[in-house]
Each structure stands twice: as structure tokens, then as C-alpha cells.
């Protein structure tokens, strides 16, 4: 069964790139969010199996969005995809409930690998 994914990133270019990679590997992108606020709303509406989450975004940042989504659904499977790879940030994201942290730029394989790992 193809798993559903929601992509969150404030840059249209990044959303497009991730979507291509994800769909090419057999997943279905059911929603795209441009900020944390949208991500929380769309998660509640579409209940995707997995989520990719950027950190630095307008309106609501990724860490806050992760916390909100985890509150709503403690079983949520969220992977962080962010350029911001500094240790305190990684720790905060994982403590908030993210299952993995990918630092941009990353290879397509890395994203797919992470999705496969958390979907099992």
C-alpha cells in the first residue's frame, strides 16, 4: 500500500524537489504546507502517514509545528529536512518527537531511506 506524505517547506523550489523524489519512489504526496501553521492544519485534515518538516519558516517554525502535531497525534511520523543542522536544534527537534533529522542539502536516496525506515 502506497504511503501518504505531507511536505512542509517555505520554499516552492524545495517542495517541488522533494515531491519529485518522493513520488518517484512510490509514495503519494497528499498535501504541501508552506509554513508550520499550514502544516498543522493540513495534518489534521489529511492525516498523512508521514511528514517532512522544515525548521526555519514564517508564521510558525518547524519545532513548534512538530509539537502541535504530536499533541494531536502522538503516533505522527515526522522527518525534519532543514539546512539548520546545529546540535541544539537537532536535539530539540528529536525531543519534540521527530523521528529523523536530515540536513540540507541531502541526496534523494537519503530522504527515501529515511521514509522507508520510519514507515516500517
Amino acid at each position, binding site marked *: 500500500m502506497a504511503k501518504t506524505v505531507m511536505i512542509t517547506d517555505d520554499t516552492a523550489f524545495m517542495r517541488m524537489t522533494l515531491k519529485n523524489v518522493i513520488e518517484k519512489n512510490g509514495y503519494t504526496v497528499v498535501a504541501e504546507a508552506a509554513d508550520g501553521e499550514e502544516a498543522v492544519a493540513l495534518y489534521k485534515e489529511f492525516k498523512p502517514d508521514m511528514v517532512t518538516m522544515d525548521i526555519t519558516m514564517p508564521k510558525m517554525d518547524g519545532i513548534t509545528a512538530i509539537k502541535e502535531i504530536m499533541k494531536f497525534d502522538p503516533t505522527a511520523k515526522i522527518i525534519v529536512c532543514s*539546512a*539548520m543542522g*546545529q546540535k541544539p536544534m537537532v536535539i530539540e527537534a528529536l525531543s519534540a518527537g521527530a523521528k529523523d533529522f536530515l540536513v540540507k*542539502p541531502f541526496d534523494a536516496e537519503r530522504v527515501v531511506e529515511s521514509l522507508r525506515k520510519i514507515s516500517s
Partner: protein
Amino acid sequence: MSSEAKLDFLKELANIGTGHATTALSQMLGGRLFQLVVPDAQMLPFSEAAEYIGGLEQLVAGIFIVVSGDVGGHMAFLIPFDSAMVLVKLLTGDDSGEMNELALSALQELGNIMITSYLNALSKMTDFLMAPSVPGVAVDMAGAVWESVLAGAEVTNEVTVIRTEFFADGESIEGNIIFLPDDDDFKKIARVLGLGEM
């Protein structure tokens, strides 16, 4: 610390930061090899700062980020228009030469990754958190972009600029990463790296 020692220190920071940033750029562009020109650090009088990176009227794409956390400051990544369009082509496959929404988005992301990689490197060295803001992107005359960056950074008399130029084999791509650390925070970095009081 003498001005000379300060500049040397800035160059070292630039070395490390831009090394990471260009690795990131290389990865984004499918492993293309980049040549780095030795980082240049200058403390320039205010009025010379804009001319430093090139002609004031030259059309450039500028990505601007505010840095906060343990260390604060401002950073910008400035790319001459022609180089920007080469990067757009390499990133999106669009070779129309048109600066459309997707092109701007790709450049914004590129700048974001470059600058954040730079900050990640510095953070690792110093254990300071240096968090980037959401980036702003503008395509305009270099002078206008530059002075908007300087005004945002509330620069007073002297501008400390760490500049780097990089070139890719086969394609002419230039860019300048400008780092404007807040004065006090700059001293913090120096102290942590054992360079004594400045």
C-alpha cells in the same frame, strides 16, 4: 588585538565557513567541483563597503538572513545576475533566462543553504547557536541590495566583510558571502577560540 590579527581571524572563519557552504553548493548541483578563491576579509570605511563587491549598478540577486542566538549578526549572499541564471538552470532545468517565481524560489533556497551551512560550521567550532531567519530575496542593483543589508544591520562606521569568490569548472559562477557579525558577538567568538581579548 591588532587590526591585522583581527583580519587574520576573520579570514580563518571565512575559510571554515565557506568551505562548508561550497560543499553544500556542490552537492546541490550534482557534485560539480568548485574552486574557492582565498577568502578575503576587510574592514572597510562605510562609504567604500558597497563598491567593494562590484559595481553599484550591476544587477544582482541577493539573499539576506538575520542571525540570532548566542551570536547575532547579518549575512548576505550576493550573486551577479548572469551567474544567478546559470545556477537557476542547474537547479531547475529552466534555461529560459527568466527570473520567474520558481527561479527566485530556487535562489532563495540556495542562499538559505549556503548561509546556513556557513553558520553550521561556525557553530560547530564555537558551540554557539547561530540561528538563521527566514531568508529575504531581492533582484536589483547591487548598491540598493547592499545598502538595504547594511541598513538592516545598522552598521555604523566600519563594515567588517568576509568575502569569498568561487568558480565552477566549465561554468562561470561567482558569488559573495557577506558576514556582518554584531560587534560584541564577534568578540565572543574570538574569546571562545582562544584569541584573547579584542
